[in-house]
């Protein structure tokens, strides 16, 4: 089992991003996804910066992939997408079918916001060059097991195993809206929320996270204690979603778990304190995601 680091979902200052990946370079995670996947207005790092980070991580022995924007609308976004897809240093994780269009014919990863729900869609993308598939967040262990039984040759399965779940994208920026601003004049408010903006229900329950045009779960998915089941379902790579605090401990816990150094229960307990808004593993068990 390999460990991967998902793209940073939040908008962090440039130096924070560089410092984060310096630590990732020293971590036992094998695969790192880089790039902006949420909002094209987040330009603390440009494509050349991501490429430089990629080279640094590669020289530290990591496999690097560039991730594309999930919701591609404007011409300028499409132009950036094309540049990412046409560079040949790193593999690309497609998060929109426009990216798949540009990547077909050469090896690529299909990210979690590509809708693949059955082996027929999986096979179609494999024919076009997909070598790795990240399951959509609402996949259960039963669904994944059935996908595994009809898995195309040379396609790796990756599963989001830790972190807040990306639940939706919109044209509207909800962080800007919370400040009575429009997206075009958002003052880059997302920079103020390195862990996103917490949304409560009317009964003061922590419910969702506003992250610009993206909505995440407030609670975390954490499948460390289901490690054996993820293996049995054919998962090759466990994906960990970056957060501000404790990423090294989280990676270390998963690493010790996969190497048999720590039992899954103990590894889970070790990182429980790093999950501020509760644990939501419902999807994996075929239930509502927030269970």
């Amino acid at each position: 089992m390999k460990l991967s680091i998902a793209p940073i979902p939040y908008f962090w200052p440039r130096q924070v991003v560089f410092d984060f990946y310096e630590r990732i370079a020293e971590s036992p995670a094998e695969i790192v996804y880089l790039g902006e996947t949420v909002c094209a207005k987040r330009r603390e790092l440009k494509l050349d910066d991501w490429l430089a980070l990629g080279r640094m991580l590669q020289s530290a022995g990591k496999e690097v992939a560039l991730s594309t924007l999930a919701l591609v609308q404007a011409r300028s976004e499409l132009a950036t997408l094309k540049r990412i897809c046409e560079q040949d240093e790193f593999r690309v994780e497609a998060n929109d079918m426009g990216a798949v269009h540009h990547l077909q014919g050469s090896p690529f990863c299909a990210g979690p916001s590509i809708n693949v729900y059955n082996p027929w869609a999986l096979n179609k993308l494999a024919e076009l060059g997909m070598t790795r598939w990240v399951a959509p967040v609402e996949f259960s262990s039963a669904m994944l097991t059935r996908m595994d039984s009809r898995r195309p040759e040379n396609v790796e399965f990756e599963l989001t195993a830790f972190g807040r779940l990306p639940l939706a994208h919109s044209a509207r920026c909800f962080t800007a809206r919370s400040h009575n601003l429009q997206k075009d004049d958002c003052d880059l408010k997302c920079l103020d929320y390195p862990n996103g903006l917490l949304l409560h229900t009317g009964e003061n329950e922590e419910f969702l996270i506003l992250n610009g045009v993206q909505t995440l779960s407030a609670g975390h998915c954490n499948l460390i204690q289901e490690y054996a089941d993820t293996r049995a379902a054919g998962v090759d790579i466990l994906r960990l979603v970056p957060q501000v605090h404790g990423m090294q401990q989280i990676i270390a816990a998963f690493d010790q778990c996969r190497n048999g150094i720590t039992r899954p229960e103990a590894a889970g307990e070790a990182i429980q304190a790093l999950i501020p808004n509760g644990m939501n593993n419902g999807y994996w068990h075929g239930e509502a995601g927030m269970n």
Partner: protein
Amino acid sequence: MELVCPAGSLPTLKAAIDNGADAVYIGFQDNTNARHFAGLNFSQPQIEQAIAYARQHGRRVFIAINTYAQPDNWQRWQEAVDRAAQLGVDALIIADMGVLDYASSRWPDLRLHLSVQGSATNPAAIRFYHEQFGIQRVVLPRVLSLKQVEAVIEESPIGIEVFGFGSLCVMVEGRCFLSSYVTGQSPNTCGVCSPAQAVSWHESADGLTTRLGGVMIDRFAPHEQTGYPTLCKGRFTVAGNHYHAFEEPTSLNTLALLPQLQSAGVKAIKIEGRQRSPAYVAQVTRVWREAIDSLQQGSNQYRVQAHWQETLGRVAEGVQTTLGAFHRPWQ
């Protein structure tokens, strides 16, 4: 511009056709379509009658098979495609790549539209579906500004259909898991959003509280108009403010943009609402038929008539309407 109207039953289909729909889109009675509600949709004999009625009046029928097949139930989607093809419908509206692949190879002459649930928001994505599966039209998600719609049409190899009126998805369609996060059922896999069996209403001294999957979505004071607890239309608290954090209960209404949509080259206007009554579909269809006909007299003369807006305002969700993402400041 073709007027594409919804029908969840035979009487509704007739209402749509009688009031001027050019095409009507319908679904089978299972989760192969994104309006999988109890008592809704068409049995085999009803579809045969629907097609016969449409043919008599020179109109078209599309069948939506626009949810995502899963490993254990693939057969149902395959059979739905076969049934629709054998019925001789005018087009299938499909979202799933696997289903598109099957339909395009098994029934190469069948016209395919990409459902809004296919989530194609840019020309590169549209080109992909066109080249791989031969789709001939795409329904755009409700996330593009008017300028972006124009840009997509300039580069799209196929015709574009946009939503004109009805409930407004705030999130990009086909990639929203809010409903499944709370209820376990999503539009993609189950064909439902915020499903009725997960909804509860509770009256108390504080007002009427609505819940979805046990999560409080809203509480209405006695003087407020109540609404169905669709998750993205609820009131939540962010940084101490309690408000509609995503969107108010509102309907999309693009009557005012019709001339621009036509000059941009939009091929079809879609009315949302297969779950709506025959009376609703009749009223909305009549207004849009009049509007499109009036546009054909010349776009300079086109004026949104007060009685159109009154009619649509009366039936709209939340009794207010918006231009949604078409209007950039909404974003």
